[in-house]
């Protein structure tokens, strides 16, 4: 949403928000990187010359950095004069309340330009070895620093550098943790597709509820209102995460019972009812189904959307008979959900088997469950589960709405009553 709108108050008893595409930076959810203002860019450029500029101005320059105490520090090769350092860094140091001569000088073995050339050559060579993580011209040690995942690769990398003629003492090779791209519930292109990630249809975003096989059909379940029309099958195509990211639909809606008036417990008049806000979509490619897996973040209720692993569905809540409608967990049970907007949230069941009117519609969802936990737009369709062991969970149902600080879900038994038997793990 637009998080920094320009507000403008109108008449008493009337509230107004003014938004603008360019002014006041009301960026949409897909936030673009901030661009520093030209003034800021000029200011920063004039204060600290680039390494290349310092190399031009300081004979014997080997690197510049701030040490652990924040002291400006320069490497100079043997025999180089200090005076050019003071001239080149004078304005930068004065601007920080320091004298031009306050920079610390360390003796370096290698010149900056030489290290730059070696970094380019080492990059070419080192990345031919599997498990190379990074190649850095490290200005803090006046050396090339190379990180590898596996210590067994160190010898291979060093041999390659030797063939290029890099001095052995110009390079430090060490073990490093691999750099992993952080995937978000909103942006990940998840194949096979786990529950909890963003799906897109029409002009809407929802969350994938859970993967399920119906007969032989490899499918997923999401909310009924996460189809082109709530109730009734319109062959809604689904994209993941967005049709603009992957133009091939991953699945098509195949089951979404109509809302009807004659269900037991449905109010008289023009109200229409169902036991679940759930629909099933058939994967275009069955291999895309990650049966039994729910994408997870590192902890509940911390606003994180970064995927750190998966929950594994090992059981389902009760289903199969009318006695199971409403689910089998009592109020007070702590349950969770993973959805594209608020991630993993969890809290206690506060109400069970609630006949729930949907704001702004004629719909009443029969025998639903309320949970005191966070929810926001886009979480519809989320899987709801109970942790039975980590990472094992019991599948409980499909989230479809929010009421204040609670979310509302259709219990698994209600879903099965309307969509038929489902294999979820």
């Amino acid at each position, binding site marked *: *949403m*637009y*998080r920094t*709108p*320009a*507000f*403008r*108050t*109108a*008449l*008493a*008893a*009337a*509230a*107004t*928000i*003014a*938004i*603008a*595409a*360019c*002014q006041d930076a*009301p960026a*949409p*959810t897909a936030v673009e990187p901030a661009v520093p203002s030209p003034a800021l860019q000029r200011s920063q450029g004039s204060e600290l010359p680039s390494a290349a500029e310092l190399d031009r101005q300081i004979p014997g320059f080997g690197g510049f950095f701030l040490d652990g105490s924040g002291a400006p520090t320069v490497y100079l090769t043997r025999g180089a004069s200090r005076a050019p350092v003071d001239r080149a860094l004078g304005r930068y140091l004065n601007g920080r309340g320091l004298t031009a001569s306050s920079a610390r000088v360390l003796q370096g073995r290698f010149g900056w330009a030489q290290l730059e050339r070696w970094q380019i050559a080492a990059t070419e060579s080192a990345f031919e070895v599997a498990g190379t993580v990074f190649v850095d011209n490290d200005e803090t040690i006046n050396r090339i620093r190379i990180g590898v995942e596996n210590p067994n690769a160190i010898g291979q990398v060093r041999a390659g550098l030797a063939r290029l003629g890099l001095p052995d003492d110009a390079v430090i090779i060490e073990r490093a943790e691999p750099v992993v791209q952080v995937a978000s519930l909103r942006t990940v292109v998840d194949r096979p597709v786990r529950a909890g990630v963003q799906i897109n249809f029409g*002009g*809407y*975003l*929802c969350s994938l509820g859970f993967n399920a096989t119906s007969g032989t059909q490899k499918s997923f379940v999401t*909310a009924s*209102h*996460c189809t082109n029309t*709530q109730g009734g099958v319109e062959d809604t195509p689904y994209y993941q995460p967005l049709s603009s990211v992957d133009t091939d639909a991953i699945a098509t809606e195949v089951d979404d019972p109509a809302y009807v008036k004659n269900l037991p417990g449905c109010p008289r008049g023009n109200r229409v009812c169902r036991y679940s*806000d759930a629909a099933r979509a058939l994967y275009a490619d069955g291999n895309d189904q990650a049966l039994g897996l729910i994408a997870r973040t590192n902890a509940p209720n911390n606003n994180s959307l970064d995927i750190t692993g998966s929950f594994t569905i090992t059981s389902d809540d009760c289903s199969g008979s009318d006695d199971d409608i409403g689910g089998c967990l009592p109020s007070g049970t702590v349950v969770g959900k993973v*959805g594209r*907007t*608020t991630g993993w949230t969890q809290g206690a069941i506060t109400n069970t088997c609630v006949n*729930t*009117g*949907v*704001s*702004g*519609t004629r719909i009443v969802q029969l025998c639903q469950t309320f949970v005191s936990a*966070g*929810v*926001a*737009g*886009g*979480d*519809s*369709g*989320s899987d709801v589960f109970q942790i039975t062991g980590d990472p094992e969970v019991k599948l409980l149902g499909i*989230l*479809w*709405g*929010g*009421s*204040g600080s609670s*979310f*509302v879900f259709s219990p698994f038994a209600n879903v099965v009553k309307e969509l038929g038997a489902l294999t979820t793990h």
Partner: protein
Amino acid sequence: MPLVFRVTNSGKESVTLYLMGRKPAADFRISDEEGRVIWSRLRGQTILGALRLYPLGAGQALVFRHVWNGRADSGGIVPPGEYAIRGVLLTDDIDGWASPPAFIRIER
């Protein structure tokens, strides 16, 4: 008392709003002088949790209207005093997107 909540794109380009539900929805919330919310149009209502990508053209506005009957959620007529009224657009933010307050004074 008529309440109006207007969300205007005052810029020169279309923007896409991320709105909770199948249709754009907004709450009106009225707070007393202590800051306690004494009335909310959507209190107790369940809103669909889909997220609608809603384009709002330059100069266009979403307008929400409601008539408040002067009663608190408890059902009673609110006592004289000053009250703050906010419109809250339901979005993908868990707290929604609230307007600054407009103030009214109720006198008897």
